[in-house]
C-alpha cells in the first residue's frame, strides 16, 4: 500500500494533536458531536467539508491542527 491521503475534521484538538495527524482542521468552538455544524445547517456543513477537502491540495503542515472560524455556527 502506498498510503492514503487523509484529512481529519476534529472538534477535540487537544486529543487529536497527540496523534499528530497529517492534515487536520478544527472548526473553532464546535462542540463534540457537531464536527460539521449543527443539524440542518447544510450550507455550513458543506463549507466545513469543502475546506477540509481543499486542505488535501494545499501546502501541508503535517502534525498541525489548522483552526478555522465559522461565525455562523454560533448564530
Amino acid at each position: 500500500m502506498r498510503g492514503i491521503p487523509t484529512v481529519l475534521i476534529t472538534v477535540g484538538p487537544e486529543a487529536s494533536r497527540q496523534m499528530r495527524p497529517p492534515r487536520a482542521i478544527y472548526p473553532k468552538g464546535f462542540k463534540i458531536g457537531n464536527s460539521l455544524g449543527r443539524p440542518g445547517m447544510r450550507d455550513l456543513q458543506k463549507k466545513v467539508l469543502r475546506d477540509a477537502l481543499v486542505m488535501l491540495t494545499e501546502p501541508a503542515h503535517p502534525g498541525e491542527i489548522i483552526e478555522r472560524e465559522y461565525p455562523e455556527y454560533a448564530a
Partner: protein
Amino acid sequence: MTTIHRKCVPFTPLDRGLAKCTVALVSAGGVHEKDQEPFNIADELGDLTFRIIGGDAVFSDLMVTHHHYDHSDADRDINVIFPLDILRELASEGFIGGVAKEHVGYMGYTMQLRQMYEQTAPAIAVQIDKKSKADVVVLTGG
C-alpha cells in the same frame, strides 16, 4: 490506558485534483447501518470492530451507537458527524470525482489503544485501499 506517541507524521501527498478523487468517510463517531450489529457499549474496554457503510446509505439507514459523547444532534441529522449526503452533493457538482462505494464507522472509544492503533486502524486502511478504492479519506470523530 496506554499512551501512544507518534514520532513522525505518516504524510501521503495527493497526486491529483479533487475533481478526480473518489472520497471515503471514516468516522469514529459510532455510525453504522441499522441492520448491522451495534457497537458493544457494555464492554468498558470499548469495541475494536468496525462497520462498512454503503455509499448509497441514506439517513434512515443509519444510526449511532456510542456512549462517550452526546450524539442527539447526529440522531437528527447524521451529516453533523458523517457527511455522506454532502459528499454526494459535492460529487454531483463535480467538486470531487465521486463517492466511494464503501465507508467505515467505528466507535472511537477504547481502553485498548494499542490494539486499536496496531490492528483496527490498519484493517480499516486495507478496507479503504482494497475494497472502497478511495483516493482520499475524510476522518471525523464525534
